[in-house]
């Protein structure tokens, strides 16, 4: 991948790279992470890169000669790292310190305290709920940043309807019509299934976004924006973060610490359930609308540039 001059091939290979790393995660018993890495690393990332490549041009300028300074620095860094890494606890060691201490608590107590089988979601939403709030805010910042950089502040929904390039792909459109409801349904399933199996707010958000992006790709940006206008998206992005934050504040008002859901209901475990479902909803809404907003901004930016040219 380092050698390939053609950017397009690099993007495809990075797609495969995303899939490979995701399947590696599966072998490492990390279902949720594989889920997310597949959806992001092999799904959204190449998608965004391709939209960028349409206007940036496929071919790199010229083959760069191998630059020796970075190479030398890299070799030294690799050597130092090898030495350090050898002292790590061996791979998969049961007694390694990282498994003891804190993690044992999560494995033993989380089913009892929070009552959901998927420990990753329980740690994600409840034990370290504040990290996830930070994560949601990161997505929110990226969406606002992209909109500001590309669309210059207030996104306007385009009036004229640009005829989608994929018009002549009748077959794709028919299949698309059949598939998109299925995808959105699957997104909902993943959203509310987060406690019992791999899944959760973030992954569901990405699936929703992929469904809408597929619709936009097949039926053209303008009709997609009639379905999901940009103004509404801005509200949704903000709404998701506010849901998350206000659930935290609600716990504050009821008397517990920030993001302590056990106060929400009479019995702590049901309180946790309510809290986690609400949190996942907030995450799902923000992520879905942020991804769609970013994708619309990218396509509008590449498209509007061409209208100027033609």
């Amino acid at each position: 991948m380092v050698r390939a001059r053609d950017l397009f091939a690099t993007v495809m290979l990075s797609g495969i790279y995303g899939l490979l790393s995701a399947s590696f995660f599966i072998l490492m018993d990390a279902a949720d992470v594989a889920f997310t890495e597949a959806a992001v690393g092999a799904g959204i990332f190449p998608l965004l890169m391709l939209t960028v490549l349409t206007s940036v041009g496929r071919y790199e300028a010229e083959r760069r000669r191998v630059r020796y300074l970075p190479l030398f620095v890299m070799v030294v860094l690799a050597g130092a790292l090898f030495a350090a890494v050898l002292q790590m606890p061996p791979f998969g060691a049961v007694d390694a310190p990282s498994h003891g201490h804190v993690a044992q608590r999560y494995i033993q107590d989380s089913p009892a305290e929070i009552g959901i089988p998927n420990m990753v979601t329980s740690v994600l939403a409840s034990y370290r709920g504040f990290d996830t709030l930070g994560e949601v805010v990161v997505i929110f910042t990226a969406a606002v940043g992209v909109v500001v950089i590309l669309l210059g502040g207030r996104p306007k929904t385009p009036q004229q309807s640009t005829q989608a390039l994929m018009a002549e792909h009748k077959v794709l459109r028919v299949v698309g019509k059949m598939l998109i409801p299925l995808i959105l349904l699957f997104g909902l399933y993943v959203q509310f299934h987060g406690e019992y199996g791999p899944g959760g707010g973030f992954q569901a958000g990405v699936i929703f976004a992929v469904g809408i992006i597929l619709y936009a790709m097949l039926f053209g940006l303008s009709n997609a924006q009639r379905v999901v206008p940009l103004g509404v998206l801005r509200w949704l992005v903000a709404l998701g973060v506010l849901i998350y934050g206000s659930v935290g504040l609600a716990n504050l008002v009821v008397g517990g610490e920030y993001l302590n859901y056990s106060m929400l209901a009479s019995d702590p475990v049901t309180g946790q359930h309510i809290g986690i479902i609400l949190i996942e909803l907030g995450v799902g809404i923000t992520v879905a609308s942020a991804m769609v907003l970013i994708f619309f901004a990218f396509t509008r930016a590449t498209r509007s540039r061409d209208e100027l040219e033609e």
Partner: protein
Amino acid sequence: MADYYNYLIVVLLMVMGLYIVMAQGNLVKKLIGLNIFQTSVFIFYISTAKVSGGTAPIVIDGAELYSNPLPQVLILTAIVVGIATMSLALALVLRIKRAYGSVEEDVILEQDKSC
């Protein structure tokens, strides 16, 4: 030595990713290098989480030994952070392409010097 393969792969990927970011001129190529670098860190975290013989951290009556859920939670957040930075960087690349007309680092630098 045998059970250190994971970490060696991580180190190799990390170094390759950094090399791409430093040596390549094309801005888009740099981002791909950055992506490789970040993914190698994720692989590192997950390989510390694996408990040999343990199954995925989803409670099923059968299993009793589970892999460690904590690094997986950290990685979920790190992936989100990675894609957020990437989308911001790509937005910048688009605007740079529109402003400078090219995405090559040296072309941009001498355009800066000239004006």
